[in-house]
């Protein structure tokens, strides 16, 4: 007698431990094999773009902390850069260096979270994660010392920073940065050649370069698929053109490569930090900026290479104290849209891993 099969629809989420927040995937399966997947988002939609229209430019900076809540420093920077472009403000050099330092520290701790949770999704419950958190904690301590907050930093302002670094911060940062290469070596010893990681990730969830290009995928995910695109190189901003660093690119586009690219980016961030900490000048931490901002009518879009890809802010001003339009281009919203292409044909257990390697933060996807 032939085996009778039928398609089954399963809702994965919105409350599912591996969806990294509140995300739902409607999965159609034949047996364990996925034939269709439709991502459903919006569960964390807070109307941030509408809220920002009713606030002044400065009042919206804390809202950016809550987009991708792992990388608030980068979000702050992308947003204040957009205001600076709108108003033609030039931040002093010391502020730019501190911003680069904060952004690279953010990249390192974001990739640590991403790698740690990927291992969690693979079933290595919280042991590798805690190794990753060890490095992240040291960075969060630095954030707390500088801004008063570990995660929602709210540290940058148009024209510079909210306050200068406290005494001894740079020495402490140097210590952490010097400690990091050995720490990443240790992580890699535990994970990179690990047989389970390799077997479950290599060749799984392949994103081909032409598909990635069509979707507009950026960040480590795009670079794992061979798209050599990094905003720090493609359209250099701030003082990045002064630093010597590489942009890691791999060609397989599978889950394993996405892991590898993130680990390599941590090492490159260490390189940038070493140079920035060596060269950081004395001087003002902020330019002279009026207390109440009224940018001239016009619009500005700026983007930075956030840890997860291209993060852009589009601001339209009508000359008033509030923005007329305030739009975020979040990297993971765009990266997530290709999930169906990554998962069809794989088993449901692989969806968890593939989703982990996309590295989504729903605060930013849903806004």
């Amino acid at each position: 007698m032939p085996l009778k099969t039928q398609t089954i629809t399963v809702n994965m989420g919105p409350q599912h431990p591996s969806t990294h927040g509140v995300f739902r995937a409607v999965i159609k399966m034949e047996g364990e094999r996925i034939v269709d997947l439709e991502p459903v988002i919006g569960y964390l939609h807070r109307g941030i773009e509408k809220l920002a229209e009713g606030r002044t430019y400065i009042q919206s900076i804390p809202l950016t902390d809550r987009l991708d809540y792992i990388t608030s420093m980068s979000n702050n920077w992308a947003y204040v850069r957009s205001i600076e472009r709108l108003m033609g403000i030039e931040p002093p050099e010391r502020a730019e260096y501190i911003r680069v330092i904060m952004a690279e520290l953010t990249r390192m701790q974001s990739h640590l979270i991403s790698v740690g949770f990927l291992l969690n999704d693979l079933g290595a419950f919280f042991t590798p994660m805690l190794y990753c958190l060890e490095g992240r904690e040291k960075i969060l301590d630095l954030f707390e010392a500088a801004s008063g907050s570990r995660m929602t930093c709210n540290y940058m302002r148009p024209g510079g920073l909210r306050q200068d670094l406290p005494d001894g911060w740079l020495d402490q940062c140097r210590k952490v940065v010097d400690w990091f290469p050995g720490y990443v070596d240790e992580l890699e010893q535990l994970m990179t050649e690990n047989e389970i990681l390799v077997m479950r990730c290599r060749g799984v969830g392949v994103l081909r370069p032409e598909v990635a290009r069509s979707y507009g995928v950026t960040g480590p995910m795009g670079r794992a698929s061979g798209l050599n695109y990094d905003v720090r190189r493609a359209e250099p901003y701030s003082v990045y053109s002064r630093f010597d660093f590489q942009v890691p690119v791999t060609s397989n586009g599978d889950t394993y490569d996405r892991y590898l690219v993130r680990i390599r980016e941590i090492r490159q961030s260490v390189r940038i930090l070493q140079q920035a900490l060596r060269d950081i000048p004395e001087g003002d931490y902020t330019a002279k900026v009026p207390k109440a901002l009224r940018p001239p009518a016009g619009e500005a879009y700026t983007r930075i290479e956030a840890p997860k890809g291209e993060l852009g802010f589009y601001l339209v001003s009508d000359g008033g104290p509030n923005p007329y339009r305030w739009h975020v281009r979040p990297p993971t919203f765009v990266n997530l849209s290709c999930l169906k292409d990554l998962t069809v044909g794989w088993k449901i257990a692989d969806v968890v891993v593939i989703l982990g390697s996309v590295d989504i933060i729903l605060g930013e996807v849903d806004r």
Partner: protein
Amino acid sequence: MAEEQDLLAEVRAAVPEAEFEVVEGSRDLTLVVKPEHLLDICSHLRDQAHMDYLSMITSVDRPEYFEVVYYLYSYRHGGPPVVIKVRLPKDAPQVPSLTSLWRGADWQEREVYDMMGITFTGHPDLKRILTWEGFPGHPLRKDYTYAVETTTEELLPTLPEPLEASNRLEKR
């Protein structure tokens, strides 16, 4: 600047029937095009001018018209963007979808539809994305008001249909 002029000349030569306006004094090279020429111009920019990266789609509710804004970059060459703007009338705004050129346009166009109520013709699955089906109005429009007397029941999404019968395991 010379590169910008070359690019404009190329677009003019490739899509001769399209009239577009270059916005003077804007920070990035900005073209205002008519909706009917949008697909031709974008397809030329993607294939001939290597502007193959559709980074952002968004919309602005201006006093006289709706504006849909596209930012195109180049994966291969990097560098500054080309900005395409389409201006649409206030009543029944419609613009062709770019999903046939970039699959990444799918979600961003759905977001513009959801938040601003602009219809993208030719979109394969145009439905709300950040709010739910049945949500009243389009929140980012300037005339959107949240009615205070709206009851919670009116705002809540209608519950989905129970899973189809086919989903239950059939008895042999």
